[in-house]
């Protein structure tokens, strides 16, 4: 009798264990491939980097990993500080033995990590920082800095994308041809502003003023007052660290100018709540959006929103593509060795969520930065309309058309 009870108990426990493990993903015997992700977790664009990397890794593992090996993601919050990022990079390489690092939202932080990627020979794909200095360092020191790639439109390319949009949809159609540049004072906006100065006149838009302000500015009344005195039609922005305050004050004070350019925080769904709806009418550039840019874009956005209850920021698209490109590079190289990965990434031609991605070669001034253009990545322009982000440019991906905010239209017609 005792033996029967024992056997029934063993069977019951075994059945329970089997039931418990029914839904568990495949167990890999192979050694995992470690990938690091570094970013500034607190602001929504920074969080997007971590979420997108986690999503890509989950999907890759669910489909059998890379060459039969699972991928293990190591995440490090740099708190927006270079010192924390350098410490994280060292920990990732020395302790967690990552084969590559992706991420970093702030250009200054990416620039601080570049010498470490070069020194430790670890591929580092920047998916947030947009400064042109990032690729300039690779161009000027190719042999030692070849491990660094910039999978985001750099500031010069962003300025070009915005000028292309303003020419097609604003200057030609609405006749708005006077622009005032207003940018936060960070490294990435130096090349952005230089790009605006170069590309806006070529697009037939006159630059009537230029202001750079500290990112901790609270009251934007004097800035908008200065801007209004120059009578521009458009304020072309370079905002990533700031966003909520100037947007709200533009709306509150009903400044009669179109707000367009880079307003990185405005490109996530969280911005509507943060500004209490004051972002209505704001136009912002991003790498991609919930639009048919490639067959991968909309499915990615849907899964991302379902999982994280927020839309991806520009660097979310970039990071997601970066992890998949690393997968493809490892498969192509049949290796996780850094030099082999660099060669595979340099040769790669990949259709991601933001377009067709190829990196510039070592002769280009933007070495290892992605190529810009209709056949590659152009970025998109999205506008807040009735609480939703609507893609208005480029035409092939547009889900709506530009709407001039009512107070801009009213005040302009009154004039």
């Amino acid at each position: 009798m005792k033996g029967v009870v024992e056997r029934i108990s063993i069977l019951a426990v075994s059945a329970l264990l089997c039931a418990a493990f029914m839904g568990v993903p495949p167990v890999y015997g192979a050694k995992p491939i470690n990938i690091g992700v570094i970013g500034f977790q607190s602001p929504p664009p920074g969080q997007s980097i971590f979420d997108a990397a986690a999503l890509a890794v989950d999907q890759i593992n669910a489909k059998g990993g890379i060459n039969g090996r699972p991928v293990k993601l190591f995440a490090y919050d740099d708190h927006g500080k270079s010192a924390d990022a350098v410490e994280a990079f060292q920990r990732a390489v020395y302790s967690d033995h990552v084969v590559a690092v992706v991420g970093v939202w702030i250009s200054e932080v990416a620039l601080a990590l570049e010498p470490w990627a070069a020194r430790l020979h670890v591929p580092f794909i920047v998916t947030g920082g947009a400064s042109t200095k990032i690729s300039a360092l690779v161009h000027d020191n190719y042999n030692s800095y070849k491990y660094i790639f910039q999978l985001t439109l750099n500031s010069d390319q962003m300025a070009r994308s915005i000028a292309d949009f303003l020419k097609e949809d604003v200057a030609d159609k609405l006749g708005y041809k006077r622009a005032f540049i207003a940018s936060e004072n960070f490294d990435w906006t130096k090349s952005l502003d230089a790009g605006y100065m170069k590309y806006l006149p070529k697009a037939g838009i006159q630059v009537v003023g230029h202001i750079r302000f500290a990112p901790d500015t609270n009251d934007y009344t004097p800035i908008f007052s200065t801007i209004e005195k120059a009578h521009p039609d458009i304020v072309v922005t370079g905002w990533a660290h700031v966003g909520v305050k100037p947007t709200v004050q533009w709306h509150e004070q009903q400044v009669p100018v179109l707000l367009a350019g880079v307003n990185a925080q405005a490109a996530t769904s969280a911005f509507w709540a943060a500004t209490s709806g004051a972002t209505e009418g704001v136009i912002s550039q991003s790498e991609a959006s919930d639009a048919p840019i490639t067959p991968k874009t909309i499915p990615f956005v849907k899964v991302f929103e379902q999982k994280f209850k927020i839309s991806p920021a520009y660097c979310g698209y970039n990071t997601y593509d970066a992890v998949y490109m690393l997968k493809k590079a490892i498969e192509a190289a049949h290796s996780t060795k850094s030099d082999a990965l660099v060669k595979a990434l340099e040769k790669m031609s990949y259709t991601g969520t933001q377009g067709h991605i190829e990196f510039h070669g070592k002769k280009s001034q933007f070495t290892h930065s992605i190529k810009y253009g209709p056949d590659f990545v152009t970025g998109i322009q999205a506008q807040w309309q009735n609480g939703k982000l609507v893609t208005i440019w480029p035409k092939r991906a547009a889900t709506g058309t530009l709407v001039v905010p009512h107070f801009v239209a009213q005040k302009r017609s009154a004039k």
Partner: protein
Amino acid sequence: MQLFWEILVNGFIVSSIYALGAMGFSLIFGTAGILNLAHGAYLVLAAIVAWFFISYFKLPLPAGLAIGILASVLFSYLLFFLLVNPIDKSKRIPEEEKAIFVLTATLLWSIIIEGMLDYVFGSTPVVIPPFVSGSMHVFEISVTYNMIILAMISLLIIGLLWFAINRTRPGKMLLAASMSRTGVAIMGIELKRVYLLLWGIYGILAGISGVLLAAFLGASARAAPELTGMAFSIVVLGGLGSITGSFFASYIIGYLGTLTAYLISPSYTPLPAFFVLVVILLLRPQGLFGRF
């Protein structure tokens, strides 16, 4: 001429909101002798909690603001019961070192609140919806109704505070406690009741100024140290503990910041306040109005 009116009107609005922001800080120092380094954290706490309830639970504006102010009152009492009172009653801390212990405790309390807000709500600033929309033209410039209302509410609250302290019995109790704790005890007034009243008023004042500031300039956890610094500069300039001094000092600091923003660069707006703080500490440590 337009520039003159812009500086005059915007400076007045900004200064009035700053004045309310500094009142609580001044009151708590004047009465309890506590330099509350968590002051800025209270302002952003009230603002972010109010914003959260308005944005996510779709509560009407007044209800959301009331919850934000309640959060400030709750944390105000938490600070009193968890840190200030135990330190004050402690027999292991020498009397002469208690002030520095309380100062350190408020600094740590501030870091805790900031960290908590940063973790839960992120570092992106949030803005409370305007009380009214639209703008008007006065003296050649455009001013939003919201800014005018914010300034008016600030001045009204300051007026009520002045009346409560100088013309009501509980207010006189606070005034007496600021002059001599022993005297108050001899008069048969329980000191604990005075402190309960004080921290309650402080929580309300900090809460109201927090939500008003967030309806104008926005609020984020990372703005807390700057707000504490601004209140500190105003209170030192006016004279530590002097409510009248703080009121006038707010206008000096507010107009200095506005002049800097319009005539030099908006990036340097807070600098004059801190420069004035250093000069006052060196030349007139008792401030412009001394202590009430």
